[in-house]
């Protein structure tokens, strides 16, 4: 970024990119979807662990 632009920045509030409402809405939807996938993965790994190893999971030799 050029020095000239940085100079102008002194006068302009550093508020970054302001997304439109539609862009914010889509970003929120994507975030919720990613969160849902991550939570699903946690549940899947938990369930698979319990079903594969059963109660003996804590009694395994190290």
């Amino acid at each position: 970024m050029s020095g000239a632009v940085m100079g102008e920045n002194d006068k302009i509030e550093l508020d970054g990119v302001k997304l439109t409402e539609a862009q914010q809405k889509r970003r929120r939807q994507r975030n919720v979807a990613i969160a849902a996938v991550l939570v699903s993965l946690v549940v899947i790994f938990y369930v698979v662990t319990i079903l594969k190893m059963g109660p003996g999971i804590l009694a395994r030799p190290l």
Partner: protein
Amino acid sequence: MTDWSSTSQEAPGFAPVAIASISMAGPHDYFELMKPRVMSLVVFTALVGMVLAPGGLHPVLAAISLLCIAVGAGASGALNMWYDADIDRLMSRTRGRPVPSGRVTAEEALAFGATMSVFSVLVLAVTANFLAAGLLAFTILFYVVVYTMWLKRSTPQNIVIGGAAGAFPPMVGWAAMTGSISIESIVLFLIIFMWTPPHFWALALLKSNDYATAGVPMLPVVAGETATRHQILIYAVLMALVGVAPAVLGFGGLAYALVSSASGLVFVWLAARVWRIREGAPARKAAGRLFAFSILYLFLLYAVLLVERIAGAIIG
């Protein structure tokens, strides 16, 4: 405060940002990348493979395995859309897809497809077994590399060989339950493998201009419509014969024998009509009917196998 909602390009104190490049893709666009209609067929055929298999996988683990197969199929669809965006843009049937329409970038589709591929294979390996995971990985690789990147643009036999990718799901389902491959799962594979050419060539007869515009060497474009009609009829006969194999081998019952024989005969009859009626609107109508019936045919065969097995389990 500066409004960057229009088409501004440089935010103060930050690197230049093209607002137009900020993604407007929603979750439904990513879901569309996974080719949900193809995925539903994959889920259904894999489910039948799992139900027919004699394995003893816990029902919850089986459900997670089925989810992995569905996600793996969807991931390969996303990777296909990433690679084929240039030709999808040229065809009326595909130009509304997320990448050519600009809702998702090609890079996003690639990242999404690759991530889902890896996760689906790894989770299937943990949930079911390494054979099923290996088969799923091979299916994804076959569809993306062998079919999409290599065969699709280079030979009119593209969908004959590439059809194997769509035929693997019941075999993956069977392997997930049993940890093995058997004659039954090979027959389930062969039914879809032999079904694919007449199914797609009937569509290609209707959309040959699209494929020609995009430079995809589908059989009607390269060898002509007459040669395509011959091939459709030959494959329809072979497919109808393979279709009754489960009854002959004993894992399809009487209902399956009746349904597969009758629907196989209808399939061959419709293929014969496509072969016989070659000009104008009636020819297009005949191809359209064969295409529509081909979907019903595959559904019927697998549905009857499923119902017979469930009914057998209930009755004892």
